[in-house]
């Protein structure tokens, strides 16, 4: 049973949360309610072209991902690790639309301790910010767009966003950059079913075993390095040779 489920997760389809969609008030009495195939499975990122980004936006995010997590000889960078794909699927899903958040007005600015009070969803903010970033580059860098800048110029611009010296019209650019860094790094470290952390590269980089679930034999083994490769929710390639 669990093996079949793992494969479905890997296939990346048929993972709609049927259970939640169908959740209706009920009466529980007499016995614990249980029905087959009612697992609350995760919604994996589906392969394919961009869901949320335009082609140009996707290229810009990939370039951003590679500055936030640059490739090095041992570990993939943000782009090849799939962080842009991760973010694309997140923005196309509940995260992008603030689903489940309290979205009723009025929206007042308040003080920072009162939490974000922004009527724009992440999807709207990313769209605005990527357009504004290109607009800024065209003016500041002689007609070149963000992706056309050298890595050094890109880093300089990002430091400007981070420190607040580069201002983008129509949004809080500093806050946007802070959230961008957070989102890209989340994609790097989240389970690979969400589109980032390709081949569990981030987990291998730090020595995190991933979804491994039983360390009873290891809790008493002090100061020893965990010797096994990581495993994800969908297993690892060696478990599914027909799909690797």
């Amino acid at each position, binding site marked *: 049973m*669990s093996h079949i*489920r793992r494969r479905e*997760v890997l296939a990346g389809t048929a993972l709609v949360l049927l*259970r939640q969609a169908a*959740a*209706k*008030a*009920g*009466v*529980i*009495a*007499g*016995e*614990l*309610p249980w029905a087959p195939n*009612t697992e*609350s499975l*995760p919604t994996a990122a589906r392969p394919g072209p961009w869901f949320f980004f335009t082609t140009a936006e996707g290229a810009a995010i990939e370039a951003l991902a590679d500055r*936030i*997590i*640059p490739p*090095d000889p041992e*570990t993939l960078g943000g782009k090849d690790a799939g962080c842009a794909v991760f973010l694309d699927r997140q923005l196309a899903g*509940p*995260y992008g639309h*603030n689903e*489940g*958040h*309290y979205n*009723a007005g*009025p929206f007042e600015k*308040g*003080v*920072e*301790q009162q*939490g*974000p*009070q922004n009527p724009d969803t992440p999807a709207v903010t990313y769209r605005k910010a990527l357009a504004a970033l290109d607009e800024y580059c065209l003016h500041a860098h002689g007609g070149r767009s963000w992706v056309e800048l050298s890595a050094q110029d890109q880093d300089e611009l990002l430091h400007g966003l981070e420190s607040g010296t580069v201002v983008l019209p129509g949004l809080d650019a500093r806050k946007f950059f802070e959230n961008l*860094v957070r989102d890209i790094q*989340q994609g790097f*470290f*989240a*389970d690979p079913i969400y589109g980032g952390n390709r081949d569990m590269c981030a987990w291998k*980089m*730090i020595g*995190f075993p991933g*979804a*491994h*679930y*039983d*360390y*009873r034999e*290891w*809790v008493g083994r*002090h*100061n*020893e*390095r*965990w010797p096994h490769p990581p495993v994800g*929710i969908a297993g690892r390639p060696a478990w599914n040779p027909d799909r690797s």
Partner: protein
Amino acid sequence: MTTRLPAKDAVIVGLGWTGSILANELTDAGLDVVAIERGPWRNSATDFAPNYAQDELRYRIRHELFLRPAQTTFTFRNKMAQTALPIRNWGAFMPPNGVGGGGVHWNAETWRFLPTDFTLRSHLTQRYGAKFLPADMTIQDWGVTYDELEPHYDRFEYLCGTSGTAGNLKGRIQPGGNPFEGPRSRPYPTPAQQQPFSHTLFGKAAQGLGYKPFPQPSGNLSRAYVNPLGVRMGPCTYCGYCEWFGCANYSKASPQTTILPVLVRKPNFLARDLCEVTRINVDGSGGRATGVTYVDSSGQEFEQPAQLVILCAYTIFNLQLLLLSKIGTPYDPTSNRGVIGRNFTHQTISDVESFFDSSKFIFNPFIASGAIGMCIDEFNGDNFDHGPHGFVGGGYMGQVQTNGRPIETTPVPPGTPKWGAKWKQAVRENYLSALKPGTGVHGSMYSYRDVYVDLDPTYKDRFGRPLARITLDFHENEIRQNRFLTDKFAQIFQAMGAKQVVKQYRLAPYDINDYQTTHLCGGAIMGTDPKTSALNRYLQSWDVPNLFVMGASAFPQNAGYNPTGTLAALAYWSADAIRTRYLKNPGPLVHA
């Protein structure tokens, strides 16, 4: 149109820890009981199965098991002069949702409060004099003593199978346990959990500094256990997906793993899920509850009449329901009158991150459970002389490293850039050799005149009801307490051989973005005087004697421990009073 249902002996609002305990006790007494739960039914096997429960993005970052603010939230401000704004996504605390409540995703840190915590104002006044307390501090005695609660703490621990080392057995101090704890009538039901490397180092260093470290009492079990109800639990596998997550191994004590399998099979019990109680109904006199009104997931409204109403929701939802149902006088901080919303508190948490030589230390932070700590209690409650320090209160502190999940737990030394090649390299170098306790300094928050809950004048929930409004800020007493405790805590990591120790003090103003704990307390407090408490010592409403209000909303102030052990003990204490006294002679159990 409202459908009126057949009357029940008792209706329970919310099926978390206290709801499950009360339902089980009252059905044992022969009552016909219905529990109404706002969230969904949750089963270990289907809701957090071991082939997908270990998902940091879904559960920790996107809050899968928690209440959605779209369903209802609170407004927040630091000071009375500010306009409160809605909490649009959770930050400082995480309201639970669904059957099992907070018992599903808690760490399972299962403490008892200190005997002096229950007589706080009299004790501190006697030891230090009334002038030692800040003028606007409104701490109170609870009206119940540790000795009265001891049998009920014991019942909860044996229900859960709690793993720990006793420190005080019937007044005799035991080696390896917490020497400051109140006397317990018997040892913990199961021995303490095994300790990972960093926890044992912390224990040695603390001992070297003259402290008496002990393993944290844990509801994640060190071995398999069958509880007195006949429900079987499995041993914890130290998976590191505990707090914020449901346990897939039946190893973490929760209503699901300790009570519900027995409760659900009783013919005199039924539960309704995905039904939200919108008000407690009272009769024309205002002195008697007639039942509750609730709305199901299709929007249909029902009235459930009952002889007894037991409010078992999360702290602030208890308060909101009392305020919306106009039961008890709302608290007014200006006149200092009224009771509902009074003495609202949270917690004073801080942490210390420490960095060790990566060629000598491999901590494997992912080998963990939610309550796997080596702790010291020298600086909790009034375990030390506060006289020279100019503050009251305290907390336990410990190396309670609950996880190595990498979105949350990839600490880097101060000065490291937040992104780029240097950040990546610092994460790689430090992951296995850095320590970041999930619970570090777990300090008390005492109550103040200007920290309270009332109804918001502007923002509404999806039914158009006013949201509860929180007015809350840190006071100087707690800031001083935290500085003192954090410094003591950091010294232990220095003694462990860390090359760098980073103190993260808790500072004012209170920030709704920054997660501390989900231990909101007070607002419908127990006490001995109806002018300053909503409930008598049995958690019975002074105003409506057939209404009992469970949970941490009854705490007059928050102590330096996690609250679940105490709120569960209070639930058993209250259930005992209902069974042995109230049912024989329904009416006030205490005459004011």
